[in-house]
């Protein structure tokens, strides 16, 4: 019961928990990917297809850049702890989809574990808690490997 309560996505339909994977939209006509999966039309101006499919995106990528939030972000951000604990953010490039997706960096990792080109994998972890259920979000976990860019 406790486990089930702890595994609620913070936003429905944007990612799966088992296995952890972001859900994107893909244009069957031209192959363009989209995230978040809310698009109704292909963003390629020469395409215009509106019959998009939902697909899981690559779970691995490389860091395009990274930073952290040393000051508590304002609402609607909900801090998980009091006092506030800083967290890191990574912008990660997916090779197959050729797009960059932002996410927090997994618990226990910070900017010291990252550089441009670091390989990361997608995980899901608690984002916020209302005291009963923890809401999950996607995060990027460093794999401790570098690739040349």
């Amino acid at each position: 019961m406790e486990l089930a309560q702890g595994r609620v996505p913070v936003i429905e339909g944007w990612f799966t928990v088992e296995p952890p994977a972001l859900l994107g939209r893909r244009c069957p006509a031209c192959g363009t990917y989209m995230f978040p999966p809310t698009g109704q039309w292909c963003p390629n101006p020469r395409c215009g297809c509106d019959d998009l499919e939902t697909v899981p995106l690559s779970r691995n990528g490389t860091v395009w850049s990274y930073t952290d939030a040393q000051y508590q972000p304002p609402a609607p951000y909900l801090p998980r702890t009091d006092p506030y604990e800083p967290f890191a953010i990574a912008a990660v490039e997916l090779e197959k989809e050729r797009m960059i997706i932002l996410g927090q960096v997994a618990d226990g990792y910070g900017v010291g574990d990252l550089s441009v080109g670091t390989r990361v994998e997608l995980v899901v972890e608690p984002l916020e808690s209302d005291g009963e259920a923890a809401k999950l979000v996607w995060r990027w976990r460093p794999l401790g490997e570098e690739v040349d860019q």
Partner: protein
Amino acid sequence: MTGGSGTGQVAVIGAGMHPWGKWGKPFVAYAVAAAKAALGDAGVDWSDVDFIAGGETVRNGYGGYVAGSTIARSLGWNGARVATCYAACASGSAAVEAARTRILAGLSNVALVIGADTTPKGFLAPNAGDRWDDPDWLRFRLIGATNPAYFGLYARRRIDLYGASPADFAAVKVKNSKHGLHNPFARYRKEVAAEDVMASPVVADPLRLLDICATSDGAAAVVLASAEFANRLGVRDSVRIRAVSTVTPTFPNTIVDLPDIATDSAASVAPPAIGYRESIAAAAYEESGIGPEDLSLAEVYDLSTALELDWYEDIGLCARGEGEKLLHEGVTSIGGRVPVNPSGGLACFGEAVPAQAIAQVCEVTWQLRGQAGDRQVANAKVGLTINQGLFGHGSCVILSR
């Protein structure tokens, strides 16, 4: 194509500001002060203005959403045509463009372009409420990605790709603080040492508090006129607008940008030859027939110190990765070949969103007229302003005398 010669010229005949700061007044009070200053500078009566374009401010309720008419009413209804422009940080240049195109079309003779804002303390934040379909709201809720977080991403990339250092970023602040010392409209007029910047607390790695611009109250206004109207008024050697660039990105836009949490995918279409920020200046260069080598000065949007270095490259002052070298050689200081942010920039002003792009035009106007006092760039002939509004609003104005 080139707006360089003959008729079809739009002149800047007046410029005015309200000093930047945290004054606690309604935005329209700043607006009226700036408008009166600009009209006085132009020698034009408000009753003769036939078009007013106001930059919208979203933090002032209904009046701010219809800033053009709110300001017109405060100046006294005069029957002018009116527009209010929202393009986030680019709102001011969108308003300039509305006025310029109306004048070029022969529909207006003289226009007041104005932006004014008040800002809360601390981080800019999205609109209140549960807004699960608003990308600006979602980036805060899901990721905690404030504006400085995006500035941090660009800054960290400069470090890892080009070997930039926090000391390089601090040197931008040192330069701009020296420039702003001499600007009566700047909020911060105090020399800042590199050690001060590097001793200030980290906000978003690698950027520290003094690397990031503050939010301010402020207002700026310009009076634009057709060449014929300027001649009739007896304005000699007026400052002319040579180009305005309000471009959107071209698909696929592959650089992370506010407020999005993902870029376009380049899986099906190769990215454009030049990135979005470069394309903003490129469009203005193409329209004006002016190139980066012709610039006497530039006002760029230094939301962070590191971002100013990105702009050097985006506007073509140097090759990618060479911004630090240009800075340290003194090229972008007053006295150098192309001073950047002689006004002191956002480092000294802070950000007053709908006023900022207009304030940049004011500064270039004063510089081109030789009226910039102790911060004057010698023999200034051509100036560029550049800025970028979130949600894909380009903002570049090229002016010449």
